[in-house]
């Protein structure tokens, strides 16, 4: 891989049914990665059936019309390969890896599980048990509970982001196999499906295999993309506290709505977030809260980006006695980053960071596949990376300040804490 993936070295094919196939040849490796997504995320489920999309996606690998659970596992493990399907909010994703010679096996199995799942009772019930165990364990986890409560405060009940993709202990037991089948029938299909293949395979062969496996797939029931309801920034400080007895650490989440990947100031927001809570030892928040004051085991900020307005938040794990001080210091840093421009050095550092990390990010087949999928799903264009450096360096301190002020407010935010009760 001597040049960046771009329109000249990525093969992009649109199948007759609309599926987009992207292939990047990488003969420096011996393996191949197959990944992608389609429009079957939790966005399309009702709130009283929260977890339906996740359960449907998980169930696909449990058996198809022609293969049972063991046959699927044998097919993959015989060749040292793996394949998973899982749901996010907007899309359900799939990802697998094998030796390049075994790409036909991966594609064959992917087509089978996406198109002909059987939802066999015993394996699906075993899977439900595993999901419920996972939810029970998470219900005792301060980090998970703080984040969940944060989402619930930030997004109203009418918004899909209010709910966890994994569902809840109340909803998962009520989802029936008929509902899984119905969700699959309505939402799995070629509309909005993107497949990326990266590795030691010829593009023409990979496209031919994908065509043979998927081009005759049609689903007339697929609904149009659901648009997200409007959501407003908090106009005041909203607090949530989830007490969990017997814990020695509290988790804090502070933040507000961040930009979607489509906002013009998304890139400026990424850079200013890096100054705030990523660069070096977790940016300014890490330096203050962890390094200078020694208050936290971890303290950083994150900005997800995505199809809609996902959170921009600071996260810290602290001793319960230090909650107030840590919170104050994080708010101080948010105030500072929205009040004054970052320094020339800060700007140069994060510009250099974002451009410099591309080679590491694109070293593996997985990294290249993920980047290609982002370029496709967010409509960035396949030449996105060729102008990436210029666009990063075109951003000014004022652009960063503007993005920080657009989304962050030190006087109006959601503050969510989970941990032991304190006096």
């Amino acid at each position, binding site marked *: 891989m001597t040049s960046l993936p771009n329109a000249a070295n990525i093969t992009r094919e649109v199948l007759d049914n609309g599926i987009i196939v992207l292939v990047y040849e990488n003969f420096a490796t011996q393996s191949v990665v197959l990944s992608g997504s389609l429009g079957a995320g939790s966005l399309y489920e009702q709130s009283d059936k929260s977890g339906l999309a996740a359960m449907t996606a998980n169930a696909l690998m449990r058996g198809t019309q022609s293969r049972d659970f063991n046959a699927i596992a044998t097919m993959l*493990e015989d060749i040292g390969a793996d394949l998973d399907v899982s749901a996010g909010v907007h899309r359900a994703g799939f990802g697998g890896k094998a030796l390049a010679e075994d790409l036909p096996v991966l594609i064959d199995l992917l087509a089978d599980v996406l198109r002909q799942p059987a939802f066999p009772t015993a394996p699906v019930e075993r899977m439900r048990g595993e999901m419920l165990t996972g939810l029970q364990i998470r219900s005792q986890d301060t980090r998970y509970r703080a984040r969940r409560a944060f989402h619930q405060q930030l997004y109203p009940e009418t918004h899909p982001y209010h709910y966890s993709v994994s569902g809840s202990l109340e909803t998962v037991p009520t989802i029936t196999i008929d509902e899984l089948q119905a969700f699959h029938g309505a939402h799995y299909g070629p509309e909005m499906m993107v497949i990326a293949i990266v590795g030691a395979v010829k593009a023409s062969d990979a496209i031919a295999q994908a065509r043979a496996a998927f081009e005759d797939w049609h689903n007339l029931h697929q609904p149009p993309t659901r648009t997200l309801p409007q959501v407003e920034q908090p106009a005041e400080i909203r607090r949530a506290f989830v007490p969990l007895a017997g814990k020695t650490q509290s988790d804090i989440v502070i933040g507000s709505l961040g930009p979607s990947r489509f906002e013009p100031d998304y890139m400026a927001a990424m850079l200013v977030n890096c100054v705030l809570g990523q660069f070096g030892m977790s940016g300014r928040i890490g330096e203050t809260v962890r390094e200078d004051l020694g208050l936290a085991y971890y303290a950083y900020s994150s900005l997800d980006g995505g199809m809609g307005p996902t959170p921009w938040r600071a996260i810290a794990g602290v001793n319960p006695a230090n909650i107030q001080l840590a919170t104050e210091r994080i708010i101080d840093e948010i105030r500072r980053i929205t009040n004054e421009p970052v320094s020339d050095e800060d700007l140069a550092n994060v510009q250099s960071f974002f451009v410099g990390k591309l080679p*590491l990010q694109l070293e593996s087949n997985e990294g290249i596949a993920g980047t290609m999928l982002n370029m496709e799903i967010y409509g960035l264009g396949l030449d996105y990376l060729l102008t990436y450096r210029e666009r990063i360096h075109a951003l000014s301190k004022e652009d960063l300040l503007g993005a920080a002020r657009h989304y962050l407010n030190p006087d109006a935010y959601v503050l969510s804490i989970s941990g032991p009760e304190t006096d």
Partner: protein
Amino acid sequence: MSAVTKHVLKNGMVVLLKEVHNAPLISWWVMYRIGSRNEPTGMTGASHWVEHMLFKGTEKFPPGYLDHEIDRRGGSWNAQTSFDYTAYYETLPAEHIDLALEIEADRMVNAQFDLEEFESERTVIISERQGSENSPLFWLGEEVQAAAFRVHGYHHEIIGDVADLETMTRDQLYNHYRQHYLPNNAIAVAVGDFDSADMLAKIEAHYGAIHGGEFALFARQEPPQNGERRVTVARPGSARFLHYAFRVPAAHEEDFFALEIVNSILCGPSGMGGGGTDNKTSRLYKTLVETELTASIYGDTTPTIDPFLYTITATLREESTLEAVESALGREIERMRAGDITEAEVTRAKKQARALFAYSTERVTSQAFWLAWAELFADYGWFESYLDRLNNVQLEDVKRVAATYLRPENRTVGIFLPTQPGDDEIEDDEASA
């Protein structure tokens, strides 16, 4: 990909170079032949503590400075301590590799071990140990290792015993550093986008003037095991665990390769750090997990300098009895020992290994790590010839190795019994849109 070249600097430092021009990156590793294996009583955990102190800055690079410098260049850096080694690495865009060479040359000699930093790190490491203690498997692993190794340094955890972590002095730790951080006790590896002659010249410029010295590595050989050993740990936790640990050969011995195949058949193949495959078709998954006796089963072979352990770990389901799980596990192990293994299973294990090996060599960072590690416990050719040696293993070798090492009298059994509900580690799965 080109071949590996090996060089020994005048001061004794071993240098391995491998050019890989697929991506404009270089990974630079310096691995010292000092790990928890070499720590006498009173100094357990010293190697790991030294690793922490090497991130506390030098006169040239004050604390925190390098985090910024590495990030600015889009690189990554880290370190790890194991039974047999302590290793440091940087992976950077090729044009910035001089920084990595400079960092490791500097901290090979110039780490400060400031008393205040040393004391504050004592608390950090004790907390790190306490963090591990949240996991029942840490307690169980510690007890099993201690029972399996009475004499050898593998008997204590890498992080060390609290008794030593509380009492070790700054000077003791500094001596541990100075005695073992010598070029003639180091293996340095570069893999990536460089010209070997240029790289060697740079390495000589950075490291050539560092003086080697005499040192002795503390190591005691473990006497043979005479009969099964059993330990029980009763602590707060949420599930019962059963841990079997069989005494097995060191990685440089030929039997190690047949053992990899035994593990693949019993528990599924061990990954080599590049991702892997599941183990749902392994014998023990079918016997224990599919029958709902256990929630999971996992097998592990660790390459080591001296003979170590092949471990099998099962998480029991709430409704199953320990006796039923041990009995089912025992039947499958006896089946292996009796030679009920097919050519097809061996062929399949070799194919799985080929896939997992391919995944592990895709990144320059993991290639450099494996070359350094292999050079440490055998020689770098161990890694290069890994697949050939595995392919040379015959069905008869697999049967012999299973019969030899899976004997009950060659194992230590550990059982974790929860006394009250506790936490489990969980995956953070909050979905991003």
